[in-house]
């Protein structure tokens, strides 16, 4: 029954299984691996003749029990995880019923689907190549099954050639086949959210600043904003509950609307500056943007607080095209917003309250009072640090009059608190500030340690940005965290490549890698219809829609022809000589009448047979019969006699004439 299943098949199946499941190791529940060990143990038992193959009933029971158990365990992780586990379960249980080739076929197809699942989680270049290796391994399994007579070395060589020859068509399809919009909504993978979160404690952003992970990259159509203008707004926090800043219910509602496609309409003013973001997966919907930006033909929607929300969580490296209108003022405020942005807990932080009351009693414009608050951060002995001492329950008091050492959230939080005490609408904004510009690659890299918090105050009929951190540590805003806090920067990560960049060679290497990674994200991961259009324009000039279709068809046909030529190699076919072609014509003429020339029948014998058997018209018969004999003589002479070129040509002409005369 299992004669087809040889040792190397089993080894290849195990190799496929383990490489694929270990690639998804982080996503798969450990129960699967326990099950896998059981199944493989059983399979090996069958292979060595120690155990009997399980019956159909046992198989079904195992499948149902396994599915029930897994669903119980992973259902809380969401639909995506549940579906993935079902596929992996089927993949694992196949070990129990490898009784026919069909089972291995199913195993191969399931494995290929799992490679696709792997791509949902991993999109870096190396991982993309690894996924290809996994896919080819599964094809190798098919090869070993259906080309078993070839040696393994030749199988590998043949498969390699097969895949290489298939590449051009695959590339063509990838480059030119128009991308369809998503047809229906599929469950998204459930991953831990990264980057900025919806609530902010004073220590949160400092925590984030320890990470050198990529947050996003940006490229600009025109000029790059100056370092101190690179304020990437992510969200506004308008609710303070004594220990943390969070979003009020009205903002949460607005986010909900934006995620379902609602767009806050405002009239944009001034010059438009287009830019592109390549967002790293955060598994959240926020989109960092420069004030004031709107999405362009994508699913990033503007909200009333002038931030953007994507309709689906950013689950993979996503490119978004945005437009910034720097001259547009953030005018919008309504009654709820005005009330919410001046709301504070009724009690607590008495020292600050007293100081604010004193400030309020002074004469002078609001602007002057704000300046006075900001001046306080420069004037007194405030320090900027990633490791501020812990604060007591009276956070603002403790900070302003006690520790006086903090990170951006401390400063922005205290500032907003004082503004609200003064009755001025104010909110905290979290996002990223700065980023590293790579002039060669033409993109700005923003990492998690660029995370920042600042304040916005409603003044003179519009929301205005105030960044208290800029008063404590101006170099943070001008040059970034690394220069602002050289001793604390990535202190937990002494081997970080970023810290080794003082070595010019390593720096070059780092930049080259970053550029390659950026190109990968832009041209491969986010290659879409617009990029397609750009590419066609670059290669073939201006092409309209129908032109594009024709182009696609043309290139498609060209590729198929290339593959045909490659495989069939018509130039290697044996060429017939002229005399052979003439002979074939003769044979064709008499096929119906006398039948074909038989095997082993010489041309002379054949012609003699024709002379006897063929029907000739009575008046020409004698002539034709004579010609037949001459034909055979000429043919033999051309084939076997040593002729000079001149003679050869003459004989050929004669042969042609004779054929006409038969």
């Amino acid at each position, binding site marked *: 029954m299992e004669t087809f299943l040889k040792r190397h098949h089993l080894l290849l199946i195990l190799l496929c299984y383990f490489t694929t499941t270990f690639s998804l190791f982080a996503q798969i529940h450990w129960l699967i691996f326990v099950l896998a060990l059981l199944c493989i143990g059983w399979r090996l038992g069958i292979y060595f003749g120690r155990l009997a193959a399980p019956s159909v009933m046992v198989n079904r029971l195992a499948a149902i029990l396994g599915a029930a158990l897994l669903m119980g365990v992973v259902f809380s992780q969401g639909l995506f995880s549940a579906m993935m586990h079902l596929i992996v379960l089927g993949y694992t249980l196949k070990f129990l019923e490898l009784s026919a080739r069909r089972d291995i*076929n199913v195993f191969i197809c399931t494995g290929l689907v799992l490679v696709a699942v792997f*791509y949902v989680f991993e999109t870096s270049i190396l991982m993309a190549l690894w996924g290809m290796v996994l896919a080819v391994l599964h094809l190798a399994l098919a090869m070993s099954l*259906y080309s078993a007579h070839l040696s393994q070395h030749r199988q590998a060589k043949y498969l390699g050639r097969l895949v290489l020859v298939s590449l051009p068509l695959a590339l063509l399809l990838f480059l030119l086949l128009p991308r369809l919009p998503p047809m*229906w909504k599929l469950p998204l993978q459930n991953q831990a959210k990264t980057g900025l979160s919806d609530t902010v404690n004073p220590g949160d952003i400092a925590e984030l600043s320890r990470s050198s992970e990529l947050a996003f990259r940006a490229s600009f159509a025109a000029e790059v904003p100056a370092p101190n203008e690179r304020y990437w707004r992510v969200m506004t926090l308008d609710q303070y509950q004594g220990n943390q800043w969070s979003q009020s219910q009205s903002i949460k509602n607005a986010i909900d609307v934006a995620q379902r496609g609602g767009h806050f309409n405002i009239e944009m003013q001034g010059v438009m500056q287009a830019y592109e973001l390549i967002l790293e997966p955060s598994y959240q919907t926020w989109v960092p943007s420069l004030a004031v930006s709107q999405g362009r033909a994508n699913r990033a929607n503007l909200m009333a607080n002038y931030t953007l929300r994507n309709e689906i969580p950013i689950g993979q490296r996503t490119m978004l095209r945005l437009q910034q209108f720097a001259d547009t003022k953030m005018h919008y405020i309504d009654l709820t917003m005005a009330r919410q942005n001046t709301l504070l807990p009724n009690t607590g932080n008495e020292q600050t309250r007293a100081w604010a009351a004193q400030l309020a009693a002074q004469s002078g414009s609001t602007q002057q009072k704000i300046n006075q608050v900001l001046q306080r951060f420069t004037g007194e002995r405030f320090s900027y640090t990633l490791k501020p001492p812990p604060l007591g329950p009276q956070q603002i008091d403790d900070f302003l009059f006690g520790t006086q050492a903090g990170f951006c959230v401390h400063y922005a939080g205290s500032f907003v608190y004082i503004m609200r005490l003064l009755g001025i609408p104010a909110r905290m904004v979290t996002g990223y500030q700065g980023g590293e510009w790579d002039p060669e690659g033409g993109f700005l890299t923003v990492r998690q340690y660029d995370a920042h918090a600042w304040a916005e105050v409603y003044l003179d009929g519009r929301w205005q940005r105030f960044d208290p951190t800029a008063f404590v540590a101006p170099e943070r805003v001008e040059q970034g965290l690394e220069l602002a806090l050289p001793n604390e920067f990535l202190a937990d990560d002494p081997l970080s490549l970023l810290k080794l960049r003082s070595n010019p060679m390593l720096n070059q290497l780092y930049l080259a890698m970053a550029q390659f990674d950026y190109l990968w994200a832009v041209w491969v991961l986010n290659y879409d219809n617009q990029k397609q259009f750009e590419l066609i324009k670059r290669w073939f000039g201006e092409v309209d829609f129908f032109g594009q279709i024709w182009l696609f068809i043309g290139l498609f046909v060209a590729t198929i022809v290339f*593959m045909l030529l490659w495989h069939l190699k018509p130039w290697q076919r044996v060429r017939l000589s002229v005399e052979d072609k003439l002979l074939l014509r003769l044979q064709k003429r008499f096929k119906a009448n006398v039948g074909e020339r038989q095997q082993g029948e010489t041309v002379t014998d054949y012609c003699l047979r024709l002379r006897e058997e063929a029907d000739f018209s009575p008046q020409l018969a004698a002539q034709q019969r004579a010609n037949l004999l001459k034909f055979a003589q000429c043919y033999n002479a051309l084939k076997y006699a040593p002729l000079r070129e001149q003679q050869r040509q003459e004989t050929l002409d004669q042969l042609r004439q004779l054929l006409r005369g038969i």
Partner: protein
Amino acid sequence: MQTHQWFSSRFERWLQRHVPARSHIVLNRKNLFILPTWFGVTYLVTCFTLFLLGTNYQNNLILFLSFLLSSVFVSCLLLSHKNMSGLALEAAEPEPQFAEQVMAFPVKIQHSAEQGQFYFSLQKQPHVLDPVIKGQQVVVYAKACHRGYFKPGRLTVYSLFPLGLFRVWSHVDLGWQGLVYPKPIETNLVLDSDAGDQQGDLGRSRAKAGFDEFAGLKTYQVGESLKSVAWKQLAQGRGWHSKAFEQAQGAPVWLTLNEQTGRDLETKLSQLTSQVLQLDEQNALYGLRLSGQNITPAQGPSHKLACLTALATYGLTAPTKAGVN
């Protein structure tokens, strides 16, 4: 069922027109068929699933994987066809066999590229033995049921190379026609060396019929039955000799249809076959008399074959080997 038969008969006729019977056939685009296997269909469905996944997750890597796998599918289509085309099949005459025995049909295959693995089966015959493939020699087996001329029908040659996604096949008619002798049925009839009624009581001496007497040794000649070799003498190193027998009574045995006890013609022929074999074993002189055909008494392998052939084809007209070169 009716429509199925109608279709299969239509297909048969179509095949006869497009892939006529030949003892030497080179497979090419005109006589090859190609269709995806179930695995091929499943694989294609997988490609499409990946395409949907890639589109819905807007994941270019999944899309590329889907495109690559589809391209491999197309490549396999070309390669599997290329692998089969150019395969030359040359049939050899099958050895005659007795009815209800397994008959061997030899084919010689020749291929320039020699990459793929080929499978052979007889389309119309139930499977009795796995075909034997040894280098260029292939032997397929079929069970011959009735005496006479046995046509095993079309030979299906197929390949799943390289990935099992496509099945490329051809139903070739190699014009095979095997001669099937009747199945021997033993009789307890006492063999008679009687030449018939005409000869009266001249040859009524039954007891001696079929018995030979050892006459002496003579020099062995190539082609003589191995049964007659004097092994003892050979083992003693005295060279090849054969034992010569002489019938005690020179009268030949006549085998006739009428003397058989069988109920019908086929049984009678079977009984005659058994007797021919028996007499040949005994090296007896025997003749065969069938209505319209007399084989004069003789002995030896060629005589045996002539008798068996006569029995096999009795009452049948030899079919012309239409279209066979």
